[in-house]
Structures are given as C-alpha cells and as structure tokens.
C-alpha cells in the first residue's frame, strides 16, 4: 500500500517537473552540444544563453517588469471594484443575487479569447494601444466575475451579527468595511489577489494585440515573439533560458502562496 503510494507520488512529481527540468538543463547547454549529441563535456555547460537573454535589446528583465506592472495594477483595480460589489451582492434581495451569480458564473466560464477583436477595436478607438496601464482595464474587467464570486462568498460566510454589532456601535458603511469586514475577509482577498495576478501575468491574446512596441511587451508575448521570430534556426538554448527566467517569479509565488491559491480556488469554485 505505502510502496504503491510512493510510486504514485514519484510519478506525479516526475510528470509535473520533468518538462521544467528539461528546460533548466537545456538552458545551461551550449547550442552546439544540443545539436550534436556526442560533444565532450567541456563545451557542454555554459551561461552563454542567460547572458544572451539578459543583454538583448530590450533585456529580458524588462518583460518581467512590464508583466509585474500590469499584474499589480490589474490586481489593485480589481480588488478596489470587486470588494464593494461583492459586499453589495450579499445585501441585495436573494433572487437578484441568484440571477447576478448565474450571470457572473457564465461570464467567468466564457472563453474570453473570443473577445479579442472587439477589444482591439476598442483599444484603437480609445487610443489605448501600446499602453501598459491601459492593458489593466480589460484585465480588470475579465477578472471581475471570478473575483466578485469569490469575495461575495467570503462576505456571505461572515456572521451577520458582526456587522450588526458594528452598526449598533455607530460605524457607518465605510467604517464597517474598513474596520470590520475587509480585515475579516483578508484570506479570501489574498486568494483572489493571487488568482487575478496570475491571470494578468499569464494573459496572452489581448496583450498580443494591444501591445506592439518591443520594450512594452509582457512576458508571455515576448516569449511567443521569440518563438515566432526565427522559424528555422530556433535558438533553443536561449529559449530555455527565457522560460526558466519567466518561470522563476511564479515558482516563488506558488511556493509562498500555495495555501491561499488552494483555498481560493476551492472555495470560489463551488460556492459561487
């Protein structure tokens, strides 16, 4: 029993990690050693790929910075709008809330990639193209359904007597939110923030169509652009270095916040 379990765990780890480890391995190999399997060991290991990626124009960390900027503004904006909305969703009549939740669930399920064309037109008409901060506008809107669902289920789980006690104590709406309710839903807020940040960090089709200027690209687009640039002689070593560098921030994020991610996903998924 225990031994088969160990086998399964090993298989799971291998399945999750092997593709990543292969990238790490590749990123430290010189291009010659990748193309000719039987080269000697001296010429195999190299940091050349990383040097190449980090000294390119623009350097790779620029994309990380861009993605972080979009991610942080989108997350902040989403929370700013979703928290009051989620709160009021708990207060509206039950049938209205039910309808709104079904609608939000539908929007959360919607394959948003189908929206890119109209959003691109919007960006052109409002002159929002090639503007990192503007990118957080569609991201905020696209994250909104899930964020409102997650947060409103957190608000609903709070005992109503807590808010009533605050009302009797003389706290107005904003004071109740500021001093009592928002501190109490902090765990759900953290989960939501991480999910929104992950979405913004990883989003591809909209960033692809909204941003064309090379030093404003977000990470996913930059990576894809490397792939599209040279069809025949693809510099896989440099790629692998880029994927490793692109994965590192998320690796840290997942390791630090895995508890919040798990609880956020699992709560919102069902109760919404």
């Amino acid at each position: 029993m225990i031994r088969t379990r160990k086998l399964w765990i090993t298989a799971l780890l291998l399945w999750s990690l092997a593709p990543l480890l292969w990238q790490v391995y590749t990123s430290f190999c010189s291009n010659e050693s990748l193309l000719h399997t039987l080269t000697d060991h001296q010429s195999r290991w190299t940091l050349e790929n990383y040097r190449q990626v980090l000294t390119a124009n623009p350097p790779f960390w620029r994309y990380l910075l861009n993605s972080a900027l979009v991610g942080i503004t989108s997350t902040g904006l989403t929370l700013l709008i979703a928290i009051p909305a989620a709160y009021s969703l708990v207060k509206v009549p039950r049938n209205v809330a039910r309808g709104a939740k079904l609608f939000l669930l539908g929007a959360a399920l919607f394959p948003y990639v189908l929206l890119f064309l109209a959003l691109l037109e919007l960006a052109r008409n409002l002159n929002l193209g090639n503007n990192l901060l503007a990118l957080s506008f569609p991201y905020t809107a696209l994250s909104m359904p899930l964020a409102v669902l997650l947060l409103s289920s957190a608000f609903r789980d709070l005992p109503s007597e807590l808010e009533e006690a605050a009302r009797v104590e003389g706290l107005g709406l904003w004071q109740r939110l500021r001093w009592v309710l928002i501190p109490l839903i902090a765990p759900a807020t953290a989960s939501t923030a991480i999910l929104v940040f992950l979405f913004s960090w990883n989003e591809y089709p909209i960033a692809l169509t909204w941003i064309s200027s090379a030093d404003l690209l977000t990470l996913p687009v930059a990576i894809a652009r490397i792939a599209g640039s040279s069809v025949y002689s693809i510099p896989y070593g440099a790629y692998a270095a880029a994927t490793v560098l692109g994965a590192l921030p998320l690796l840290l994020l997942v390791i630090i916040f895995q508890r919040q991610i798990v609880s956020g996903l699992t709560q919102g998924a069902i109760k919404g």
Partner: protein
Amino acid sequence: MIQLLLLPAALLIALVFGIPLIRYCWLSVHANSVVTGLVAIPNHGANWLRLFNDERFWQDSAQTARFAFVSVSLELLLALAIALLLDQRWRGRGVVRAITLLPWALPTTVMALGWRWIFNTPYGPIEQLAVLFRLPPLNILSNPDITWLATVVGDVWKTTPFVALILLAGLQTIPNDLYEAFYLEGGNPRAAFFKVTLPLLQPYLLLGLLFRLAQAFGVFDLIQVMTGGGPASSTESLALYAYLNAMRFLDFGYSATVMIGSFLLLVFICLFSWLVIYQTRHLRGVFK
C-alpha cells in the same frame, strides 16, 4: 443605495463582455475587410452563408471539439487520481501539492515553447528516446496525424492541477464517518469509491468538466505558440482561425462571424454534454 456599489463592476463587465458580443453580431452581417477598404458594408448574411460552406471552419470545429473532449477527459481522470492521492495523509504532502500546482501557474506560452523543444525533431528528448529504442523518427510536430496529440499533452500537463484542486476540495467535503459507516456495512475500498466517493463528487466533477470544456474550446495560446495551427492546419483551433481571419487576412466581418459561430457551437456542446450526463443519470436511476 447599496446596489450602487455593484455599478462599476457591472459596467466594466458589460463593456468588456456585452459590447463585443453586440459588435460581433453587427459585424457578422457586414463586409469589413481589406477588400472594402476596412469600411463596413451590409452584405445580407453573406458571411453566414460563407461560414456554412467554409470547410476550414468545420474542420477546425471538429479539431477543436476533438482536442477539447480528449484533453478534458484525460484531465478529469488524471485529476481524480491526483486528488485521491493528495487527499490522503502523508509526509511532505504540502510540498508535493505546491509542485503539482506549478504547471498551472506558468504562462501557457512559456511552456508551449518548452514543448516545442521537447517534441523537436531530431534534437528533442522524445526523438532521442526514440533513437535509443531504435524506432524510426516520430516527427511529432510535422506529422498531421499526431501533432494534435502533442497539443493535448501540453494542455493536460498545464490544466490538470486546476481540476485536481477542485476535486480535492470536493473530496475534503466528504465526511469520514460516511466511509466508516460504509465499511461497517461490509463494503470494501473499491466499492466505497464507486458508491460513496463518485456520487458525492459529482457536482465537483461537473463543475470541472464545464469549466474546462469552455476553456479548452477556446484554446488559443498553446496552439498559436506551439504549432501555429500546423502542420497543414491540422491543429488549428476555432479561436486561432478567427484570429488569423482578423489579423492575417484582415477580414473583420468574417472573423466576427467565426467567433459567434464558435460561441454558438460551444453553447451547443455544453448543453449537449449536460443533457447526456442528465440522461445517463436518469437511466441509472431506472436500472437501480
């Protein structure tokens, strides 16, 4: 008064979800392409007629549906196994759970590029394994019959953790004394899985199915970066086709038509899957 707090969220959602859908409906009955000088001219349903006769659209629909069903089924099976494993208590479970989550957190394009290297012919590790076993070259990314399977692998690898987490949440809602009662009645673990776990997990399985089906049907990032829709359009998805129509052929009217068409197909497929599940449940009730 308090409903006002909903307003900004509602407006944003309406703007980003609602207006595009209306715009597409309008675009789909207009010609708007390089040919018309990017000016919209009503064309009386010609886009829709073209859609019905467009072999590439129907081929892409079939390919997308095949991709979606195969990868979502695999994901549900794998995720169930992973969830069962992570639901048990053992040392180091937290670390393994974090590692399991990792593929889901990475940008799709990053690993799409990674997969391209892994499936590369002749330098990727898969081909080198083939050489080791003295197999002929597999040409995974250039053989139209099998390339789609590689995209399935990429999708399953990335999204299984998400489904596994949903199912894990479901497993953790099942009270332990249900199993104890079942064992006291003389049940064995295998029977417990079918009689207790699966029925109680059903809403979670359905939710995962619905969520993933919708996402897989709109697959874009993975395909665009990993295969570009090739070889010979054999992995092209509906979303990619709509994208190409707009961005490469600059035919916005038809691109919008393809998007509405894809959306309607998706709704149809979701309803169909729902009905099939509902029916089988109904039949099972009859045979009991």
